[in-house]
């Protein structure tokens, strides 16, 4: 009997994360393109054009997550800013088009929305610290 993995949890619109620390059915070999559940409106898995991703603005597990192209003072002009409850989440685009954040730095996700949702799960309600 396998419990829901974090990736399943990210795809869920609701549900408790209790017992998450004991879950463990995800496969390390899962490519980033499939790291995002298909039913979340993230666009075609594994396909990225080289423009900035679409903006988004939604409430996910009680947190407001937003993403939009940016011309601000992002590190190295990343060109896209993500916020959780108004606080900026440092994100980075990998050469293959996948995304990471400072909260999930070693695990690529297909889109900025997916990386924002993963950060919400990881934060368990905690607030981000402002970027240095």
């Amino acid at each position: 009997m396998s419990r829901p993995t974090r990736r399943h949890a990210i795809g869920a619109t609701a549900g408790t994360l209790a017992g998450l620390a004991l879950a463990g059915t995800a496969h390390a070999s899962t490519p980033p393109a499939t790291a995002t559940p298909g039913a979340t409106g993230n666009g075609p898995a594994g396909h990225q054009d080289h423009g900035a991703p679409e903006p988004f603005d939604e409430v996910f597990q009680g947190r407001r997550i937003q993403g939009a192209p940016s011309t601000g003072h992002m590190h190295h002009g990343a060109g896209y800013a993500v916020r959780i409850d108004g606080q900026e989440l440092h994100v980075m685009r990998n050469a293959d088009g996948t995304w990471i954040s400072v909260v999930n730095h070693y695990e690529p996700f297909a889109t900025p929305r997916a990386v924002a949702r993963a950060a919400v799960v990881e934060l368990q309600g905690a607030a981000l610290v402002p970027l240095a």
Partner: protein
Amino acid sequence: MAMRKNQADLTATEKRRFVDALLQLKRDGRYDAFVTTHNAFIMSDTDSGDRVGHRSPSFLPWHRRFLIEFEQALQSVDASVTLPYWDWTVDRTPSASLWAADFLGGTGRSRDGQVMDGPFAQSAGGWTLNVRVDGRTYLRRALGAAVAQLPTRAEVDSVLAMTTYDMAPWNSASDGFRNHLEGWRGVNLHNRVHVWVGGQMSTGASPNDPVFWLHHAFVDKLWARWQAKHPGSPYLPTAGTPDVVDLHDTMRPWNNVAPADLLDHTRYYTFDSAA
């Protein structure tokens, strides 16, 4: 000459002295300076721009120098201490002695990920997280939660078999040994271990968890094993590469040491075994 040992072989006294030295560096503020440095490089190293500590050929020499500096700080507290390494191909479960209460403590509780035992638990009082990406000040882990399996010896061997150190574009898209060891490509070794531990180890502030040093000491040992296996394969690139640390370029933040100075670990320390 310092000798780095497998953490599984440490005596109770060696474990205690290592932990006490960590706690002392934490108390006097020197520990957090290492966390700050690491997170700064995590956020500034990019595939399309300047990259030094990560996603680049200098990932291995940069962390080698970073660990030497940290080990020297430990030795300024207790000269008998050296960095142990964690062979995660062997000690693969949360029941390994590494995670016992007399060493690093275990996984986090399910409610909030908080580590509840060992010297680095919040309740022990000596390990408040100051350099962090969110508001939580306690050490967190979720061993095996986000990814089920640590890398195997066979997976490590498949990466050690690669004959070329690194390749253009010299970033997270590269083929070759460095990027497969770092884990942005292929079976995923180093990155996957960060994800397996979870908690702060998943973040840019990963050195907040003392296992960071034991993980990187083993990654460093794998580099040494690769060199022994491929004596004719040099560090690459050698010169003239934009945004990338070539063989004789000095590396930030030290600005006085180049990959060429760090290729031979025996100038600084030895290992307890070659395997």
